[in-house]
């Protein structure tokens, strides 16, 4: 591994609807690394992904985000995607009437255009799409359906992974891609991720369960709580959390008088 950073997040603060959610988040990801982010409900894990992706309404109020040497905070959503950022959503939306295939081709061609490449021929694209759908165990008919239209929870998650396979991003953020999956589907997702590990591509895996990390071995595990990374460690931290839960976070906060006062005044 090189010492170069793929993603540098420093003191990131962000608010949604006038509410501060991220409160000074630091994270460094080097090429090829897998980082797991765990933490209680409402901690800001999904928000972190949205902020990185540039979603409207998620306003950065402080700190910096550098992806592959470029400050991305002023980029449009689609520019960030083309720069190699990919967010697999916790709750993918259904878009009836827009065919999966048409959408995927537009996405792939937009990525290619950004790299100075010609659009794929329909034939070549179809071949790639079929292979990708096979990898995530989605029947090829799903390509013809509306985007996520009528897909089960697990099928939607697999569709996200399929998109990741097709778009070949530099940084993949998986937001609870394991929740709602049956055991086989969990392996499919994990295999999808592992097949893309090439020593350069990096992953941020948001999860509540140690189980996924049995399949996708993280280099680092972080605990995100109240908008900050409050603890980091190696893979063993996930096991610890599984055993202990998050009650220790409250104790930690109590020990921090500044934090305590803020909570009282809120």
């Amino acid at each position, binding site marked *: 591994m090189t010492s170069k950073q793929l993603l540098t997040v420093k003191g990131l603060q962000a608010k949604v609807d006038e509410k501060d959610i991220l409160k000074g988040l630091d994270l460094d990801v080097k090429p090829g690394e897998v980082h797991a982010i765990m933490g209680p409900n409402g901690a800001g894990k999904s928000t972190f992904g949205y902020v990185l*992706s*540039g*979603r*409207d309404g998620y306003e950065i109020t402080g700190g910096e985000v550098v992806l592959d040497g470029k400050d991305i905070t002023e980029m*449009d*959503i*689609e520019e960030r*995607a*083309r720069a190699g950022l990919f*967010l697999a*959503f916790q709750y*993918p*939306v259904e*878009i*009836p*009437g*827009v065919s999966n295939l*048409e*959408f995927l081709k*537009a*996405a792939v061609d*937009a*990525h290619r255009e*950004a790299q100075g490449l010609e659009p794929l021929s329909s034939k070549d694209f179809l071949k790639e799409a079929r292979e990708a759908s096979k990898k995530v165990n989605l029947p090829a008919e799903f390509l013809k359906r*509306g*985007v996520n239209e009528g897909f089960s929870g697990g099928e939607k998650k697999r569709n996200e992974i399929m*998109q990741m396979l097709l*778009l070949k991003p530099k940084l993949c953020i998986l937001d609870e891609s394991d929740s709602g999956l049956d055991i086989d589907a969990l392996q499919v997702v994990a295999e999808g991720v592992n097949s893309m590990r090439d020593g350069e591509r990096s992953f941020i895996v948001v999860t509540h369960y140690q189980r996924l990390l049995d399949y996708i071995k993280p280099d680092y595990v972080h605990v995100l709580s109240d908008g900050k990374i409050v603890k980091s460690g190696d893979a063993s931290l996930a096991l610890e959390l599984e055993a202990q839960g998050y009650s220790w976070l409250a104790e930690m906060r109590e020990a921090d008088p500044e934090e305590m006062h803020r909570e009282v005044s809120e």
Partner: protein
Amino acid sequence: MSFWLDQALAQAELSNDCLAEHRAKSLEALRATPWPTRKTEAWRYTPLLSLDNSVIDEPNDNIDYPGSPEGVELIELFFVNGKLQSNINVAVEGLTIASLDNLNDEQQAVAKTVCQSAKPSRHLFGMVNDVLAKQGVLISVADGSDIKPIIRLVHLQNGGQSHVRHLIKLGQGAKVSVIEEYRGEQSFVATSFSEFDLGDDAVLNHYRFGLQTGAAKALAGCHFNLANRSQMHSTLVSFGSVLSRLDVDINHAGEHALATQNAIYLLADKELFDLHSNVEHMQPHGTTEENVRGIIGDSAKAVFNGRIHIHRYAQKTLAELNNRNLLLTPKAEINTKPELEIYADDVKCAHGATVAELDNKALYYLRSRGVSEQDARIMLNFGFINELIEQMPAEPLCEWLQGELRTRFGDLRTQLSVEG
């Protein structure tokens, strides 16, 4: 009366064909009907000035024929400037197609029963069409016949006046699919009315592609009579033009009938499109489902009036009407008016109209995959319409129509990137 109407009637020769009585009746009624003004409810948002004020182009035979849908067996008839182009030569068992100006005795008898059976007399241009339409076809499907090829009636016009009437009769348990397609963008006047009379247990798949645009003045109607347990599935696609009006009537004349109707309108420039839809539930256990969706760009104007009338004896009726509109610019306009009249107590009825914006979550999702905002907006708008297209029973038609509509969306492209 209007100058246009005076002239049109003056030029009409009152021939003595089998529909002469029908014509005479309508002519009388027409003479007694005041020409609409802005105060006439049915024409409130749709001025008829262009009929009197515009110069009509000279029609000519130099006309481009549109491509045919592939992968589906078709019986195609072309009308150019209101005239049937070739002899009808159909050898399909159970199917009769005959030109209205060339009917044998038996066919004349059928034509007389279908004409004015589904179309109520109140439609102004329906009466005009009654009086003036000499061209058109009678389609008759024998009891129990399931007609495989789709009948495609293509109407191309580049000038002048045309008045076309189609009369379609489905015998008991008969099945047939009919496409009505209308094209042209020059300055012309077209009245195009069709009536469908469905026997017990008959099934009709109906498509009406009203693709006239530009300076065309298109005044049209589609009218359906449903007998016991009959079914109709209709898809209407309409562009707008300087004057474009479509009246639809669906009459549940028998019990347990089913009507589904999906209507789409796509308007740009200063175009106008006015859809008046009327459903009469006269018998119990009828079902109607209407989905009406429009995209309106530039300073175009759409009018939708959707009436459902549930008569006193029409218990157990299920009726749903939904109208959704996307306005692409602040100058685009929709006048939508739902009208529910219910006189039976045991019915389920829903009626709604919305002016929607694009789904922001969907827009974000597409962009997060690298698709530009403009392309994402086009995709979502197209998807909004495509949802209804994909419900069309004949799959090859979907692909063909999607191709046609993509061109239209290409025209709307620059506006689609503007915040809705």
